[in-house]
Structure formats: structure tokens, C-alpha cells
């Protein structure tokens, strides 16, 4: 089934064969030098996909090792480097830049009726900083690789003889890239909204990106200074976190998590924005509780800053702080709950069509509730004592980061694929892959919850024999998962090359990004649209292009 056949009736007049941003200049230099937010978005997309497959390969290798309780396949040091690299690549190279860098860049200006982001040159710079940071980090991996875990806890990270410096430096540069992306979005949203697009008409994806940007701007610098101090400690022995000189290792953890807990919301807020958009399109319904969904993004961005201590419950943090952070963690859960219930509410009395993105929406909803609720369970101070640094935590965060964020990333990829490239992909294969991924995902990570309950600590190269059965189950699941991603890779590449041309608005969506052509021309709009209604208003069946364009 081709999308274009079934949804033609809804599409506006297809202004197809005009020059679009992809065909307007095809030399290499025209890409390298571009100021176009859409091209920067596409380059980010390509880069983060490479990072994802790299990180995924590391993950599969990890899982292979864990088939056997004893030494197998590699030695302990290689294993330790491998999970560090898996974590660093997946978090700093993939998930943090993924949705904001790729889809945020592409869609936010389109959605708010702007011709570009506020600082196009800075935007390009942010991409090159990403490449530079990635290059430094990968160079470090090739030259030995660190074995600290992605958390770089001192004093281990300041004393291990492996190559920590390049990775720290890479993370620092990547942080800069992330800051610039966020800064740009905040300014864009404040100053470049189209006439008539007031705050309470802004698409929910833009709200999600806006909340994310606040975190990126305000949290990332603290990570920057923290890794810098560790670097100074390593090569100059300043001893700021060194207990032998009166330093406090727990201070490091406070500073690290002041960034890294909010950072988990950098990873999930854009994903939530994607779900807010897609759930409306595929239900053909206005967002249920628009205001609640929009403002809860801000709520997460703010309260999310003050829960970092829940990573330190057994780290020697004081009981007072544990209580304060535990309580605040409970509050941050509420904002997510509001969103979840409103997404489900959006489907109520809608006109739902089951497509590949919708399959991922269903997966997302289930995984975010399960993953999020296990987060709440972990924040219940006393329960964390047993679970801390076991596979329960590993399963918790993979449920959110893979189960929710990656699902949303995939939903976005499929939903906006026609918008970005003007091509359609095979819906049948899309559903097969989605089924495989959701199934494989459960098979991989549900056993890890049980392993955590059973008492298996994470970052274990060898483990006591009685954990083996569950580990084998998890590895089997991860193979399924891998095949799912492989299928997606194949049919998307095929679609890119040979896919049928799609219409301007194949999904019949009333999101504002569909106001421009697909793929959009370099300057996005011939004339800046005037917005006269909320996004996703499906009370009439005029195509959204008819939202009065002045």
C-alpha cells in the first residue's frame, strides 16, 4: 500500500517540480557551506544514524559476551571499554543531538512559519562542533578507549591508565554543540514566529524543543566545567575530587548529575513532542489538553533540574538530601503522567489510522509508562537501595531511552520522511519492522528487570552462574531487535533511491509544517503564512494548506 494512492484526495495541489532545498545546489560545497536549517537537519540525521548503528553494534557485542558467565569472547578490559563506548556514543553522539539536531532543525522553522532559525551560521557551527567532538571521541576510542563508564566517576576516572582525556574533551566539545543548538531554538521561538502564531498556538513539538533547549543551555555548561576539572585533575593533579587531598568524590557526582539528570529530559522531551504531533495526525484530532501538554514541558524542564540526587541514594549522600531529591523526583513524574493521559485522550473520538508511526506511538505509550513508573520505583528511596547499579536500572533507562525515545525517533523518521525527502517508503515492511522491534525490545529488556531484582550488578564482565538463563534470553531478544533495525535501514535506503514521489501532505495532517511543499523550497515559504487557528484543527476537512495564507 502506497501512501500517496490513498491520501491523494486530501493533499493540496502538489507544487512538485519546483526547485526544493535538496535540488537547489547539489555540489558538495553547497552542503558544506549551507546556512539552510533543513540541510543542517539532514546532515545531523545522517550523522546520528551512523552513531546509532555504531552504538548498536557495541551493544550487540556486549550482549554476545554476556551469553557466558565466565570469560568469553573478550577480556575484562575490552568489555569495560565497550560498555563505556556504548554509553558515550548512544548518549552524547546519538540521543542528545538526535531529535533536536535532525528533526528540530528541520521542522521548527517550518512549524512556526519562519524562513530559517535565528542564527543560521551558528547552527552550521553547531553541526561542525558535533563532528569535531565526535571525531575527538572516536579518535580516543581507537587509541585505547576509556574504561570508566559513561559517568566518569572520580577517583576512578582520574586514576585509570586508559585514555580518558580524549573522551572528556570530545564530550566537552559535544556539549558546546548542544548548547548552540538549544540557544538557537530559544531565540528562534521567541523572535521568529509567524504573525498570528502566539504561544498558545505553537505546535506541541515546538514546545517540546523549547523545553529541551532551556535544559541544554542551562545544564550543559556544568557538565563542561566538570569534565574540564576531571581533565585538569588527570594531567595536572589539582586534586579537586581526589580524596587523598581532601577532595570529595561525591561532589563530582553532584556536579555530574546536575547535568546528566536534566540531560535525560533532553533525551525524552523532544520525543514527547514528536508523539504529541503524530498522535494528533493519526487520530485526526485536536490535542486533548493542549495547554497541559505544552506547559508540562516547561514543568519537566524546571523540576527536572532538581532531582539529580536520586542517583546518589546509596553513594554516601546525606539522608536529608535523599529525602528532598526523592520527593522532587515524584513531582517530576506527574508532568509525564499528564502528558500520557492527554495523549490517550487525544485518540478519544478521533479517526485513527494504523500506520507505521502509529505502531511506534503505541509502543512508546506502553514503554514510557513502564519505564517511567520504574523510574518512580527507583526514586522511592528505600527500593533504590536494592536496585541501585543493578540491571534493574539498566532496564529502566533502556525502557525510556530505547523504548520511548528511540520509538519516537522512529515515529518521527517515518512520519517526516515524506516531508524531508518527498518519497514514500514501504508501509508493509514498516509494520513488520515495528512489530519485530517492539517484540525484540521486550525480549531484551524485560529479562534485565528480573536480573536486577535477582541482584545482578551492572558493568559486570563475569557474573555468578545463576544469572545465566535470563542473560541468554536478553541476548536472544537483542538479536531480534538488531534485525528490526536492519530492516528499517534497508527499506529506507531503498525508498530514498527508488521510492514513489509523495504528495505535499500524504498524511492529511494539519500540522503547520505541512503548509510548505514537501520537500520544502530553500526559503520555506513564498509568503510567510498568517496563522489563524490552533495546529491540528480537524473540524473541517479542507486541507491544511487552506489555513488562510495571507
Amino acid at each position: 500500500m502506497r501512501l500517496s494512492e490513498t491520501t491523494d484526495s486530501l493533499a493540496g495541489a502538489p507544487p512538485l517540480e519546483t526547485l526544493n532545498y535538496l535540488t537547489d545546489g547539489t555540489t558538495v560545497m553547497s552542503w558544506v557551506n549551507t546556512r539552510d536549517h533543513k540541510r543542517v537537519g539532514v546532515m545531523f540525521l545522517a550523522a546520528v544514524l551512523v552513531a546509532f548503528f555504531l552504538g548498536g553494534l557495541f551493544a550487540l557485542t556486549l550482549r554476545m559476551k554476556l551469553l557466558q558467565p565466565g570469560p568469553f569472547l573478550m577480556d575484562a578490559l575490552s568489555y569495560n571499554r565497550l560498555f563505556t563506548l556504548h554509553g558515550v556514543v548512544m548518549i552524547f553522539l546519538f540521543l542528545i543531538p538526535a531529535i533536536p539536531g535532525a528533526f528540530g532543525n528541520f521542522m521548527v522553522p517550518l512549524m512556526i512559519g519562519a524562513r530559517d532559525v535565528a542564527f543560521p551560521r551558528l547552527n552550521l557551527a553547531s553541526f561542525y562542533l558535533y563532528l569535531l567532538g565526535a571525531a575527538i571521541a572516536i579518535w580516543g576510542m581507537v587509541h585505547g578507549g576509556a574504561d570508566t563508564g559513561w559517568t566518569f566517576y572520580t577517583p576512578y576516572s582520574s586514576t585509570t591508565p586508559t585514555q580518558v582525556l580524549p573522551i572528556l574533551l570530545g564530550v566537552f566539545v559535544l556539549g558546546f554543540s548542544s548548547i548552540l543548538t538549544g540557544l538557537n531554538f530559544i531565540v528562534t521561538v521567541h523572535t521568529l514566529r509567524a504573525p498570528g502564531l502566539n504561544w498558545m498556538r505553537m505546535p506541541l513539538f515546538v514546545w517540546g524543543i523549547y523545553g529541551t533547549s532551556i535544559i541544554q543551555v542551562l545544564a550543559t555548561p556544568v557538565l563542561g566545567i566538570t569534565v574540564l576539572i576531571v581533565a585538569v585533575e588527570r594531567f595536572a593533579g589539582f586534586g579537586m575530587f581526589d580524596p587523598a587531598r581532601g577532595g570529595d568524590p561525591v561532589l563530582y557526582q553532584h556536579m555530574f548529575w546536575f547535568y546528566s539528570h536534566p540531560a535525560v529530559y533532553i533525551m525524552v522531551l523532544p520525543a514527547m513532542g514528536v508523539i504529541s504531533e503524530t498522535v494528533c495526525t493519526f487520530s485526526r484530532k485536536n490535542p486533548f489538553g493542549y495547554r497541559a501538554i505544552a506547559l508540562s514541558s516547561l514543568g519537566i524542564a524546571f523540576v527536572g533540574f532538581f532531582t539529580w540526587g536520586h542517583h546518589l541514594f546509596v553513594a554516601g549522600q546525606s539522608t536529608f538530601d535523599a529525602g528532598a531529591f526523592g520527593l522532587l523526583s515524584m513531582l517530576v513524574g506527574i508532568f509525564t503522567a499528564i502528558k500520557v493521559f492527554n495523549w490517550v485522550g487525544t485518540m478519544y473520538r478521533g479517526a485513527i489510522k494504523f500506520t507505521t508511526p502509529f505502531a511506534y506511538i503505541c509502543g512508546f505509550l506502553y514503554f514510557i509508562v513502564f519505564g517511567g513508573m520504574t523510574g518512580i520505583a527507583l526514586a522511592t528511596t528505600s527500593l533504590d537501595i536494592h536496585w541501585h547499579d543493578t540491571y534493574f536500572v539498566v532496564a529502566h533507562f533502556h525502557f525510556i531511552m530505547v523504548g520511548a525515545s528511540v520509538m519516537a525517533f522512529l515515529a518521527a523518521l517515518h512520519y517526516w520522511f515524506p516531508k524531508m525527502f518527498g518519497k514514500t517508503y514501504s508501509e508493509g515492511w514498516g509494520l513488520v519492522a515495528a512489530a519485530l522491534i517492539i517484540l525484540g525490545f521486550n525480549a531484551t529488556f524485560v529479562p534485565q528487570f528480573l536480573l536486577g531484582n535477582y541482584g545482578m550488578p551492572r558493568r559486570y564482565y563475569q557474573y555468578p552462574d545463576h544469572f545465566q538463563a535470563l542473560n541468554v534470553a536478553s541476548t536472544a531478544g537483542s538479536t531480534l531487535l538488531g534485525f528490526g533495525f536492519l530492516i528499517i535501514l534497508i527499506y529506507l535506503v531503498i525508498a530514498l533511491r527508488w521510492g514513489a514521489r509523495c504528495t505535499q501532505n500524504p498524511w492529511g495532517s494539519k500540522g503547520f509544517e505541512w503548509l510548505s511543499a514537501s520537500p520544502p523550497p530553500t526559503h520555506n515559504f513564498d509568503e510567510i503564512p498568517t496563522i489563524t487557528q490552533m495546529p491540528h484543527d480537524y473540524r473541517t476537512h479542507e486541507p491544511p494548506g487552506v489555513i488562510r495564507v495571507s
Partner: protein
Amino acid sequence: MAESATPSSKPDADHQPHPSHSAVPYLVVWLALLGLTALTYITGSMHLGAWALPVALTIATAKSALVAVIFMHLNESSGATRLVFATALVFVALLIFFTVADVATRFKLATPAGAPFGTERSQPEGLLENQVPDE
């Protein structure tokens, strides 16, 4: 907060939002800053004990408020910029608060008399050869 963009047609009004301007406020602020520096220097050398820190911080805050509001023109900025500045300060305050609260309310013996006390620097040689103790 910024309102939606309306193509502006009266550029002159835009570019000089505060037409009558004089340098006197800057001069006054500069003198005030010098005065406050003198004050903090004097109070600083009085060894006020427990009060030294609050006094010094209050003076520093007053000084930085002057710089931010007058020199940096926060008084004529949009609400968004003020919000950015205020948010940054609130976050800094809470970062420091929670971290110090942890140290201040720890388990009593956490850092016993004589700390810092000995830890071994790790021995880089052995590790890379991968000497994992046998079980």
C-alpha cells in the same frame, strides 16, 4: 515576551528606544561601585567571624545588581532577557544549596578527625596487563 512579528514600518522609533540619554547614570554607578568596593574591603578586614560571608556576599550582590541593571541595560531589556538572567541565578543558587546541604547533613563520622587521610594512588602498571584476581 515577544509578541508575534509584525513587519515594522517605523524604523526610527525602533532604533532609539531611549532617546534622551546621558552618561551621568554610568558615572554614578561607577562611583557607587568604587564605594562598595571600599566598603567590602573595610568590612573584610574587620574579621566579622560568622558574619563575614553574608556581609561580603550582600555587598557583592549589590555591586553585581548595579552592573547588571545599569551597565548591562537590564532596566531597558525585554522580559525574556530578564527571565533568562533570573533563571540562571536561581539554578545556580539551588545547585549550591542542595550540594552544600548534603555535606552539611551527612552521617556524622563521614569525615573523621584527621581527614584527609590516606588512599593509595592507583598502580597504573598492573591494570593494563589485565591482572584480574582469580575468584
